């Protein structure tokens, strides 16, 4: 669809929305073209970082109003051909739509391309954005508030009453959900639209079973239709935080921890199988590099993804972003080529974003050997190591999680068991680390110990003097606050 914003009084046109005409101050309305034809075509034979797959075609599309836009495609067309956006045929299709200055229209386009979405006017809806930590929208850590706002508007326009819409999410274990939602601008969107926000961590939860695995999930989940609205981000631990990973935070804290302890690659797909969701994903400004928190970089992607199958949606995102598909994304019998993609072709979308590096931490001398640590430990580790930036020393290897093997530790020295799972697992493996940091260790004590380890060659332990020092520091920080 080609859209222009046109002044009702003087007919001046813009390719992006403005509130009112800058000349006559007249109201500006959308002009949408419905009948589109191919007015021109060029086959491009040189690659560029944004468009690495060649050759590709760029069509010059023109609608009945004479409005034009370029459209990249791998398919061949002729001048004069009608251009029709094909709707999905199958139920597991993934729609990918480029945002042309209007997220609301892109969301409507993406959902409209899917094969009959079952959302009735009287349905109760639970929208599950990603709000993992207190961060500003520009940092692309959480679902963008403009995206959520557009999604709410689309639901309201569909006829669903605001009383029947609930926004629900919980931050990563160890972070405050309401703080995160506030800084992310999500609470403001809820307030503006008079829609309730629920902190999932407060429950209540109900136990469900899927493929022999038990999950305690938010009870409301069972009474509402779920719209999964993640932001698409790289994740240095599990590869991707997208449609599938976002659903893990529908579970209570012990379940989340257990899912990682029992190997998230196996437990997460079981959770996905238990839930019936529609995913409308925010890839307007996604994240690349060392996501999913602020170590990652915003990636201007300007896309909206939609689909019924979260794993397929994530797989398409990975392929489009030229990332590896993580092991927890299970496509069953389907290969990526079997996934029906509508809106844009996969090869036409391909654009490499920065890949995450699993062993990196915020500190250049502290590396991670990750055995699928839970988000609580991961979050704490990022906090502790980031506070030591600027202090150089001997390299440390923090061993985390329970899914550890001898191979992962081979050739690694100066091991520090970080978190109870790693302490237990290394004990089972009869590996003696140079130090242990349990989950009960206070953050300031953790920092003191890591500092000692970094700057000394031998073993380091928390001494009574260190404990006194850390207590004094904590007291001092409270006084300062």
């Amino acid at each position: 669809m080609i859209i222009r914003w046109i002044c009702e009084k003087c007919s001046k046109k813009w390719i992006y929305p403005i509130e009112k005409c800058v000349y006559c101050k007249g109201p500006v309305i959308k002009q949408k073209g419905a009948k589109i034809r191919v007015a021109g075509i060029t086959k491009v034979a040189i690659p560029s970082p944004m468009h690495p797959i060649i050759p590709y075609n760029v069509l010059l599309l023109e609608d009945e109003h004479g409005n034009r836009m370029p459209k990249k495609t791998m398919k061949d067309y002729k001048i004069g051909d009608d251009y029709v956006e094909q709707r999905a045929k199958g139920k597991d299709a993934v729609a990918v739509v480029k945002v042309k200055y209007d997220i609301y229209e892109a969301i409507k386009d993406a959902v409209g391309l899917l094969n009959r979405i079952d959302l009735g006017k009287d349905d109760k809806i639970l929208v599950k954005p990603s709000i993992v930590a207190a961060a500003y929208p520009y940092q692309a850590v959480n679902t963008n508030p403009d995206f959520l706002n557009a999604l709410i508007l689309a639901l309201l326009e569909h006829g669903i009453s605001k009383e029947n819409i609930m926004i629900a999410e919980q931050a990563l274990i160890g972070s405050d959900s309401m703080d995160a939602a506030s800084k992310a601008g999500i609470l403001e969107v809820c307030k503006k639209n008079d829609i309730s926000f629920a902190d999932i961590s407060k429950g209540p939860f109900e136990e469900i079973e899927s493929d022999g695995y038990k999950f305690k999930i938010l009870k409301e989940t069972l009474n509402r239709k779920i719209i999964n609205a993640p932001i698409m981000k790289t994740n240095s631990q599990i590869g991707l935080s997208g449609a599938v990973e976002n659903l893990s935070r529908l579970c209570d804290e012990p379940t989340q921890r257990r899912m990682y302890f029992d190997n998230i690659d196996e437990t997460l797909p079981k959770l996905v199988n238990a839930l019936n969701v529609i995913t409308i994903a925010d890839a307007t400004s996604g994240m690349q590099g060392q996501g999913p928190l602020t170590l990652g970089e915003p990636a201007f992607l300007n896309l909206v993804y939609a689909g019924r199958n979260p794993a397929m949606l994530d797989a398409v995102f990975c392929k489009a972003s030229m990332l590896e598909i993580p092991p927890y994304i299970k496509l069953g019998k389907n290969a990526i080529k079997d996934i029906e993609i509508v809106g844009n072709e996969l090869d036409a979308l391909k654009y490499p974003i920065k890949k995450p590096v699993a062993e990196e931490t915020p500190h250049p001398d502290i590396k991670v050997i990750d055995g699928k640590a839970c988000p609580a430990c991961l979050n704490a580790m990022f906090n502790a190591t980031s506070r030591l930036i600027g202090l150089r020393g001997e390299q440390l290897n923090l061993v985390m999680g329970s899914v550890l093997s001898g191979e992962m530790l081979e050739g690694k020295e100066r091991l520090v068991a970080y978190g109870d799972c790693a302490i237990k697992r290394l004990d089972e493996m009869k590996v003696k680390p140079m130090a242990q940091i349990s989950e009960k260790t206070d953050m300031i004590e953790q920092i003191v110990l890591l500092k000692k380890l970094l700057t000394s060659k031998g073993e380091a332990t928390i001494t009574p003097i260190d404990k006194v020092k850390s207590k004094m520091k904590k007291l001092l920080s409270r006084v300062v606050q």
Partner: protein
Amino acid sequence: MYVKGVGMTKFGAQTDTSQELVYEATMEALEDANFNMEDIDAIVSSTVDNESSGERQRGFSSILSSMFKKKVPILTSSAVCGGGGSAIWTANKMGYENVLVVGSERLLSNNTANTTDEILMAAERLYEQADGLIFPAQNALVAQQYMLRYGATTDDFALVAFKNHSNAYLNPKARFYKRQVTLKQIKKSPVVASPLRLFDCSLSVNGAAAAILTKEKTDIEIAGSSLYVDRLSAFENEDMTSWQASKLAAEEAYKQANLSPSDIDVAELHDAFTPVEVISYEDLGFCKKGEGKYMIRKGTVNLNGKLPVNTSGGLKAKGHPISATGIAQVYDLAKQMRKQAGDRQVDNVNYALAHNIGGAGSTVTVHILKKVGA
């Protein structure tokens, strides 16, 4: 104002830093003007900071202050490929006695793919950048619309390339100096964005150009100077086969100079892509709409034609170091007017026109130079 002195580096793949390029071009201009830096009252520079290899440098005004030891107004004008013309237009309006205008670019500092991407940043981001409309593709779509409507052919575009390469062969400062290119080579060159081939595209090069403008009467007067800015995206234009900003800028410059297109003896046009030169013949009033193809077919714009165009080799074969281009055009026209153009010399040049475009017809300057006493 008047043109006092001009200078430029050779356009090529040299590894000089931006400062070194600016220094070389400026020194030549100072010598040409018989000035030293003390005589300069203000500086206007042009650069787009597109050194994608990582050697980025912003705050170029202060770099120039440091190099020239000048505490005077120094402005940096950025209008992408139209930056040089825009800098001359600004200098002409500033009201200072003597103004140095200098543009530089190190476009060849990365591989072709990354350079293509850097240049793409001058396009609109959500429609053009996102949908792969690199500049050759933008201009290919424009060329196609033009061909469909007016019956121009790819052979016409090949003739433009051949003409400009023939001129560059004679220009010691051109990237293709003494490098023979045949019409067959041009027509057989690989397709970049259909219908445009490699030899329809201008050359990414490194280089700098400088001009010293003065209020004091010299042999060359800037009789017309105009700048118009149009929307960024070519697909938004009502008529994609014409740059509206070119037409407006030309009309105003002719009016200021009290001249008509038929008075122009030689012109440097913005041939970033060969069809742009053909379309520009029409936009600048050298022929009627749709008749640009006859200008090249009949040889009107050849070195020995009635209106020689791009005697320097143009962006096509001399090279296109983005921000230096508009100033290099004035350099070459000044050489023509002073009978210093060597083997490319055109007889009796009294009026010359420089036409510089930034983006796909977005920022356009037209400058008309008049030989004093003509």
